[in-house]
């Protein structure tokens, strides 16, 4: 059970390991980061992530990320909205408050479609946003990466790759050597004390 929870969290990018959190390496430019991500994936690492100030074309592929699952959340939200709107209008119109308005049926599908449509779209959007948050492990007020003072530059002008200690292949010496080999600089060991 514990392992399952850890796996799910890892799939959201939340890697848990204490006291050593992992290694953080800086790269010179987006191309170097892309290359490093590809090499990291090829070397068999799974618990790693990259950070850059802007999206990098082709990074999904380099990191070996599949298609986002957010569409299924959207679909679920859409179906919920559809059913809710249908039920709401039927229940209010035909069951709870049946009012005769200019001889129209208490409930008919024709005038109900606009509300069904709107709620389908609204709940799809809710599903998409909620799914995006969930799949990214957000909100996440604290991330061990913040222990690194250097890391603040990830939103400015620096490109980082981080390999988590929870990865099966993680080995302090070997991983550090690997990161140096693929061009990483300023390699930092992230621990709770640092």
């Amino acid at each position, binding site marked *: 059970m514990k392992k399952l929870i850890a796996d799910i969290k890892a799939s959201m990018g939340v890697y848990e390991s204490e006291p050593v959190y992992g290694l953080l390496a800086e790269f010179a430019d987006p191309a170097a980061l892309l290359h490093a991500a590809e090499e990291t994936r090829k070397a068999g690492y799974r618990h790693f992530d990259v950070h850059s100030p802007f999206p990098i074309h082709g990074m999904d592929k380099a990191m070996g990320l599949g*298609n986002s699952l957010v569409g299924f959340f959207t679909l679920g939200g859409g179906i919920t909205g559809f059913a809710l709107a249908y039920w709401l209008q039927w229940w209010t119109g035909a069951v709870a408050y049946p009012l005769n308005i200019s001889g129209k049926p208490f409930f008919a599908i*024709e*005038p109900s*479609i606009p509300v069904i449509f709107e709620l389908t779209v609204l709940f799809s959007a809710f599903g998409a946003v909620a799914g995006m948050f969930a799949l990214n492990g957000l909100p996440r007020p604290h991330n061990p990466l913040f222990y690194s003072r250097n890391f603040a530059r990830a939103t400015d002008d620096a490109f980082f790759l981080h390999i988590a200690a929870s990865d099966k292949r993680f080995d302090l010496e070997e991983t550090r050597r690997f990161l140096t080999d693929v061009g990483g600089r300023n390699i930092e060991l992230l621990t709770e004390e640092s």
Partner: protein
Amino acid sequence: MATLKKNHIFQRLLDPFAATSGDAPEAFRYTGDWRLWGIPLLVGAIGLAMGLSGWLTDAHQFYFSYLIGWVFCLTIALGALFFALIQHLTRARWSIVVRRMAEALLWTFPLLAVLGIPVLFGLHDLYHWTHADAVAADPILAGKTPYLNVPFFLARLAIYFLAWSLVAYHLYRNSLLEDATGDPGIAARQRKVSALGLAVGAVTIAFASYDLLMSLDPHWFSTIFGVYVFSGAFMSIHALLALCAMTLQATGHLRGIVTTEHYQDLGKLTFGFVVFWAYIAFSQYMLIWYGNIPEETLWYRHRLTHGWEVHSAVLLAGHFVVPFLLLLSRAAKRSRLFLACICVWLLAMQWFDIHWLAAPVLHYEAAAIHFLDIANGLGLFGIVLAAFMYRLGRHSLVPFRAPGLDESLHFENV
């Protein structure tokens, strides 16, 4: 400086310009044989021969069947016109590798004008408002005579075709000129033509659909009708472009040039306009349902009784619900076989939609798809397709000097 040579005067109906594919890079050159246009031509000729024979046996039915097939082809050509206009106006890069197909389809308008001649002979059979005695006895129709009269009707048709052909000619010529000269100023010129063309196109497609389809039932009116016809036309062109690219690729052209990424985008736009069509169709229906005024509801009553309710249900399911669900996923749009099947189905549905608009006027008391409907539809579509394929093969399959072609070739959906 290279220029564009005019075609022989007798061939200008098919293509106003002499073949230029010799100057194109090899990868963009058409290398297929006559079969790609010969087979549609054969189907078209046989279909049209059978269709025209209907004129001898049942002229009334023939004119309706012919009109349905002809308007179907017209919506395809108009779809291509709007596709080209919008790609230029938005400076779209992704679509450059498929743009030439739409451009080749543009020169269908003069051919359609010629193929429209039988409709002119059938005005009396098709349009109730051409009957002087009926108009005299009907104050509503009498009130509409300033608009619905034969000379003005013919003049309007002439204006539509002139306008469409003119815009089409400029878009087509400029694009081929770009191939020949590589003049970097052409892209800006295309945008100018497109800005004007879009305004002209929007007005003319609306009025053409009022004239050709809505006036079949001259008592009925719906201001959204033009948008309805546009939505179906614009959906169809994306389906047709995907199919056309697949056909060319199956015969060994454009390998690695049109990619899954482009098909996914064409699929997305097809999907989008499947939804748009439903949105417009429903907007029209709901207002009439809610208003519940006899002069408006009668039109739907004719389409919801005597077997036409089955056609209406098939239209709702086949033109919206099923393709909506099938095209929803990314995988569906990226699978060629799957997308091809849906595109063929949607083109059939576009024809079915036009049939649903026009045929109940002829016999609302007995729903049917007549043999002549199919013969004329296939016949005219075959001829249009053959001329299109023939024209396409005479020039580079891709506007190879268009700015941004490189981006189109390496286009990727993020």
